[in-house]
């Protein structure tokens, strides 16, 4: 029968001391004691997870990683069980978030391809279409800037666009700063001003759609 119950506190304490002492057989005892209970607990935490092996893989990695750095765990703060559980839980959540981002990116790439192929002369509007698709106009009034920023980071992969967006979010107004971000400092000053204005206008429209208002704009 599987040892599905989490180890007792005394067992945990003994095992931890053996891991700290780098006893060669301690990692094996750790896996033996925690593998089943951790898998059961985390599968219960994520009952509808699409990739069943994800939890298994992460729990295995957690248990293989811990004996290399047992000092990271502080017994005064939590039980070893809680530490391992939280460690694996964090990794699972990160993996799920990452998969979600990847899926969204693929969707956007697909949209990019569709628009580029069907309407090559409208490529300039592509990013705005993406924003409209990802962040609808009906965003609530109390939307936080950092949320919008996170969305934009996902949507806009172009480094220049990101730099300009960052400047605007930081409240930067100087043309020089924008010219630098756009990489046009070698151009005549008038041309720099014209392009910066154009870029600011483009972003102003985007921010409006995202529900963001800047006092300075």
């Amino acid at each position, binding site marked *: 029968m599987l040892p599905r119950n989490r180890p007792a506190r005394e067992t945990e304490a003994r095992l931890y001391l053996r891991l700290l002492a780098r006893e060669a057989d301690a990692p094996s005892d750790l*896996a033996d004691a925690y593998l089943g209970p951790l898998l059961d607990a985390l*599968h219960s935490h994520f*009952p509808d*997870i699409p990739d069943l092996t994800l939890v298994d893989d992460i729990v295995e990695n957690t248990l*293989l990683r811990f004996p290399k750095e047992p000092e990271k765990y502080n017994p005064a703060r939590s039980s070893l069980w809680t530490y391992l559980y939280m460690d694996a839980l964090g990794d699972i959540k990160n993996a799920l978030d990452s998969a979600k981002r990847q899926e969204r990116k693929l969707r956007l790439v697909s949209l990019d391809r569709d628009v580029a192929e069907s309407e090559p002369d409208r490529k300039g509007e592509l990013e705005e279409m993406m924003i409209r698709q990802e962040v609808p106009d009906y965003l609530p009034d109390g939307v936080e800037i950092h949320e919008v920023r996170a969305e934009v980071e996902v949507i806009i992969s172009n480094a220049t666009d990101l730099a300009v967006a960052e400047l605007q979010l930081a409240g930067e107004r100087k043309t020089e700063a924008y010219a630098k971000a756009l990489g046009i400092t070698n151009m005549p000053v008038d041309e720099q001003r014209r392009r910066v204005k154009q870029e600011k206008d483009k972003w102003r429209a985007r921010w409006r759609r995202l529900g963001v208002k800047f006092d300075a704009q």
Partner: protein
Amino acid sequence: MRNDNKPSHKALLQRTALRAEHDPFYLASALAAYREAEQIDDTLLAAFLACTPDDLPRLALCRRPGTLGQEEFHADVTQIAAHFGLHADRLAGLLRRVDFLEEARRPHAAPEEQALLLAARDAEEAKDTEEENAEKSGAKGGEPSA
């Protein structure tokens, strides 16, 4: 959610041990290298070490002796052997052989270094032959042929 057909504890440990084969921190890496070098299966490996095949996953999940330094090598081997009731000398021999193979495979090993390793290996084999002759009969589990 996983259904009632949960993998057995043994199967879970086997899977984890398999993953550990790619991690030099774990004894699994050495056992896998030895199995491959000697072209043997788990049954023969277990017989060589004087344990059962069921012990292998837990054995594989031990820290590989020598990872902390060569001074601790024998203490590590002794501890593992005592835990699983293994033939300690054979475990040590297995690890020395794998160390040798891994060292020899290093692409940047200088010719002088390789010559030293070969000499060490010759000495090792001579010692093994002596031990085998001394034991002749009675050793638990037969050593797999290379």
